[in-house]
């Protein structure tokens, strides 16, 4: 697959162009090595389907979600104000993001602070691309017939009621979707939310991601599909500590779709 250049808002604006969609990458998607491959998959899907999109690049900054959930409302609102002035400055109307935390905070908490956009999680956007027939998958892609389970991110599922979009994407892979005993509104957290990602867990008798990995093992799935870079990290670690990395893959739905559509670089 050939390479292409992801346009930034600054470049596009300099050319006098305005994209239809802003791809909000998020901190994990920008800096975390594992999450970067999710980001690239999303960018490739957007490019492949000829969506007019751009990213903010260095002009993007943390939405403030971990600060807010850890109790630092000041820092959150400072971040929100800075981001909103950038977004409004570019006249952004529609945002797609690969992170449910960014998705939630921009969709639900930015509007009162002056940032009103149509915000979509990448699973929702990809689901519409598939429904519109803009994405065709290869005949012999590696997920066909595979047993796949979906781990609901709290801030997409329980928090915002979106359970169907990611599942419809998995179904489009012609795979066998199996549910964990705790799924959808009853889905168990991966353990990273509420700023837990950035600290050690409190004293207990188990790690939350190990508890969740047991749910995965029960399904006998060979792929855990995720829709959040933090869940992805936690589930990858959980599968590793259960010593199942050889038999169970942890993949974001964007990576799966990009792979199935043969649009990832070799």
């Amino acid at each position: 697959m050939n390479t292409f250049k992801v346009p930034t808002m600054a470049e596009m604006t300099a050319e006098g162009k305005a994209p239809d969609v802003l791809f909000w990458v998020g901190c994990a998607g920008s800096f975390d090595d594992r999450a970067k491959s999710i980001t690239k998959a999303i960018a490739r899907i957007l490019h492949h389907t000829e969506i007019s999109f751009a990213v903010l690049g260095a002009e993007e900054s943390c939405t403030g979600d971990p600060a807010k959930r850890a109790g630092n409302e000041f820092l959150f609102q400072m971040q929100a104000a800075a981001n909103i002035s950038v977004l409004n400055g570019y006249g952004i109307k529609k945002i797609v993001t690969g992170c449910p935390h960014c998705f939630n905070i921009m969709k639900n908490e930015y509007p009162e602070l002056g940032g009103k956009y149509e915000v979509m999680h990448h699973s929702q956007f990809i689901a519409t691309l598939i429904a519109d027939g803009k994405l065709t998958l290869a005949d012999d892609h590696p997920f066909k017939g595979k047993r796949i389970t979906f781990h609901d991110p709290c801030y997409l599922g329980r928090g915002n009621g979106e359970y169907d979009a990611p599942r419809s994407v998995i179904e489009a892979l012609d795979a066998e979707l199996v549910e964990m005993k705790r799924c959808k509104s009853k889905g168990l957290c991966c353990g990273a939310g509420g700023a837990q990602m950035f600290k050690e867990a409190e004293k207990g008798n188990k790690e939350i991601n190990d508890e969740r990995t047991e749910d995965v093992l029960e399904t006998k799935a060979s792929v855990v599909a995720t829709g959040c870079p933090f869940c992805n990290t936690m589930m990858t670690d959980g599968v590793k500590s259960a010593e199942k990395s050889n038999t169970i893959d942890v993949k974001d739905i964007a990576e799966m779709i990009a792979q199935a559509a043969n649009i990832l670089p070799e």
Partner: protein
Amino acid sequence: MISQFIFVLMLGLGISLFARRIAFVRRNINMGRNIDLSDRKSERWKTMALVALGQSKMVARPVAGILHIFVYVGFVIINLEMLEIVIDGILGTHRIFSFLGPVYDLLIGAFEFLALGVLVACAIFLIRRNVIGLARFKSKEMGGWPSLDANIILVAEILLMFAFLSMNATDAIAMERGLDHYSVAGSFPISQYLTPLYVGLSDVGLVFAERGFWWFHIAGVLSFLVYVPYSKHFHILLAFPNTYYSNLDVSAKMNNMASVKKEVDLMMDPTADPYATPAPLPEGQVEDPPCFGVKDGADLSWKQIMESYSCTECGRCTSVCPASNTGKELSPRKIMMDCRDRMDEIGENRDANSGEFKEDGKKLLGDYISEEELWACTSCQACVDACPININPMGIILDMRRSLIMEDSKSPEPITTMFNNIENNGAPWAFPAASRGDWIKDA
């Protein structure tokens, strides 16, 4: 005549004790911070009808849910019978509604089935708590009073239902014997099976037993009325206002603090004069001392205090909490119980000091709820989703974190580092902001 007098006295005492406790709780709720939940009325009525009246979230766990519906429906409908008991008690009549004829027979028959349902459900509930010992009834915060409270209620309901059925059984025998005052009325599909217990009694003994059960039933119900607002059983009333004032937004949405917005707006506004005299407050209004988040009981919003009094300690929140499930200190149910206990304490303190709170050296944060509990929350909202009456323990946890951070600057070290990183380079990790777009190069 004398029995009518005693009856009215008992009724008056029961109702006034109940009213006194209601006034206490109401005052405690009003101590909370003001928030405006007067919007979206039709949506609120709908939520209340569905969640409280319709028990829609109870059936998420079918066994407990269906048994609870038996008790709930039984409780509500059998109370219709209370109306007759009260009128009979005051007027000295016997089954005053019996003029309804076949309708009356149908009603009494239906009440008996409901009473049996309540009785069986309560017996199963007792077994679940004490014999099977479900995990969620055995956590640390359930030791002592909370468990006793639950058992008292269940045993009381069983006794009340037994008295109700026995009252009917002895009444039916008295009617059959054509005793004076016992005019024939009602149908007794369940209590007929209790008649062998009482059929051997003499006429005098029978009347004594029938009156005894009647008095036991009404005295029991009145005691129950007084007991309920001191107990977790207060949910039978508070579930209604509590669901009416439910959070109607999606559960992931966390409120933006208006006081902080004001500060940030000032900072972002280049024309703002930081030294400007603030606009004078309306006559007679005193500015609240600025205080961020929740440190003590009265920092909670009135809705959060209402939630703490509505909680029935079922533990569904704790049983789905990822932190509780992996042995961490945090239990969302304990958060609610702590808030209620602290509000009781503050309220009693005020009552003992002629209405003014006398500093007692205690705080909700620290003396009841520890920092360790607060930091164990993943904000996954499972507790919020699980609560059968839409209580939000997570909201209180996050509000207490706000107090820890914005009032006391107390955070675990990695959290402080995360804050610094966001402040300095716009990401929770220590990567330079300029390299945020570096992934683009190899996309």
